[in-house]
C-alpha cells in the first residue's frame, strides 16, 4: 500500500518486479490426503447424527415453538459449519473468502432482520411469536 504523495520519488514498499509466476502447488503428500479423508468421514458421521437428532426433535416436541425453532436451527447451523469448514476447505485459511462471506452474511442478516421487522407494524400478524 503506498500513499499518494507529492514527493518526487513515490515510495514503494514492494520490491519490483516480483516473480511473475508462482509455482503450482505440489501434490499434497499421501499422508495429508489420508488425514483429509478421515476428516471427511468424521464430518459424514456428524451430519448423519445431526439429521437423526433433527428428526428425533420433531417427535419429541418442546413447550413453545421458539424452542423447537432454536434447536432445529442450532443443529442445522452446526451441520452447515461442518460442511463449510471441512468439505468446502474453509479451514485452510482463505482470508479473502472469509471477508466475502462476512459481507454476504452481514447483508443477508440485515435483509432478513429488517424485512421481518417491518411486518410487526402491520395489524393482525405475528401471532407465532406472541
Amino acid at each position, binding site marked *: 500500500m503506498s500513499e499518494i504523495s507529492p514527493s518526487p520519488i513515490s515510495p514503494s514498499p514492494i520490491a519490483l518486479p516480483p516473480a*511473475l*509466476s*508462482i*509455482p*503450482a*502447488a505440489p*501434490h499434497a503428500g*499421501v499422508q495429508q*490426503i489420508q488425514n*483429509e*479423508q478421515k476428516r*471427511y*468421514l468424521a*464430518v*459424514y458421521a456428524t*451430519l*448423519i447424527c445431526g*439429521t437423526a437428532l*433433527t*428428526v428425533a*426433535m*420433531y*417427535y419429541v*416436541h418442546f413447550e413453545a415453538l421458539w424452542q*423447537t*425453532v432454536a434447536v*432445529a*436451527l442450532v*443443529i*442445522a447451523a452446526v451441520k*452447515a459449519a461442518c*460442511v*463449510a469448514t*471441512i*468439505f*468446502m*476447505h474453509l479451514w485452510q*485459511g*482463505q*482470508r*479473502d*473468502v472469509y471477508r*466475502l*462471506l462476512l459481507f*454476504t*452474511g452481514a*447483508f*443477508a442478516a440485515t*435483509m*432478513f432482520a429488517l*424485512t*421481518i421487522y417491518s*411486518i410487526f407494524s*402491520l395489524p*393482525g*400478524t*405475528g*401471532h*407465532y*411469536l406472541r
Partner: protein
Amino acid sequence: MKIPYTTEIREDTGLYNAKAGMWLFLASEAMLFGALFSAYVFLRIGAWEGEWPHGLLNVPIGAFNTLVLITSSLTVAMSWTSLKMGDLQRYRRFQFVTLFCAAAFLGIKGWEYFDKFNHYEIWLKEPVSSQEYPQLAGHFADPDQPVASVIGHIEGIGPFQTLASLQEEGESAVELHPDAFHYRLSARQQAELRKAERPSDPAVSHGADAEHASVRIDLSRIARMSAFVPRHGTFFATYFTLTGLHALHVLGGALMFAFILWPGARMWRDDPERYTNSVEVAGLFWHFVDLVWIFLFPVIYLL
C-alpha cells in the same frame, strides 16, 4: 495470450481464478436463498392464525433424502482427494455414486411431488362435526369444534382437479380417504393424539385405518377444492418454490459433474492440476446445495 492463475494460486489472495469466481457465485446464491428464506419467514409470521398447515409433508422420506444428499457430498469430497492422489479410477467410482445419489434425490423428490398432487383439501360450505363423520376423527383437535375443510386423497380422479373441472366431467360426488396424517393439528397436538391413539409411526401415509374409512362428499356441498399444488396456499407455494429451485440446483450440479466426468475428462491428460481444480470448484457448488438442503429440511418439513 495466457490468463494467469487459472491453475496456480495467487499468493496474496490464496486462490486460483475459478475458485474465487465460484465463491463469489456462492455468495450471490446465498443471497438468493437468503431472500427466499426471508420471504418464507415473512409470509409465515404474517399468516393468519390457524392458516399455516402442519404435518402435510412426509418427514421420513425427507430425512432419507437428506441422507442421500449428505452421502453424495461425501463422495464428491472423496473423489477430489482421489484425484489429488492421481487415482482416476477411484475418482470415477465415487462420482458414479454421486450421480446416482443425485438421480435418487430427484426421483424421490418427484415422487413426493406426485404424491402431493393426488391429495386434496376440500373447503365445505357448512362446517362438518365429528358426530356426523367419525371417519374424520384425525381432523379434530377438539371433537366439539366443527372443521371447515377436510383433507385426504381422492381415488379415481387423478391429480390437479378442481371443483370446476370435476363438474365439467359430470361427477356428482367425491370419495375422500382421510389419511392418517393429522393435518389440522400443530406438531404438539399431533404428538399428544399419537400417544393417545397408537404407538405406530403415524407419518407413514395411508395408515391401516385410513384405508377403510372414507367419506362421500357431494360436490354441491363443496365451496372450493384444491390439490396440494402451489396455488393451494402460501405454505405449498413456498414448499414447491423452494424445493423446486433447490432441485434445479441439484440437477445443475449433477450435469456439471457429468460433464467433467465424461466430455471434460480429456483435460486430465493435458492438465491434471486444472482438472482436479475443476472438480474442487464444482464440489464447492455441490456442498453449497447440500448446505441449503440442511436448512430447507428442518425449516420446511419440521417446523
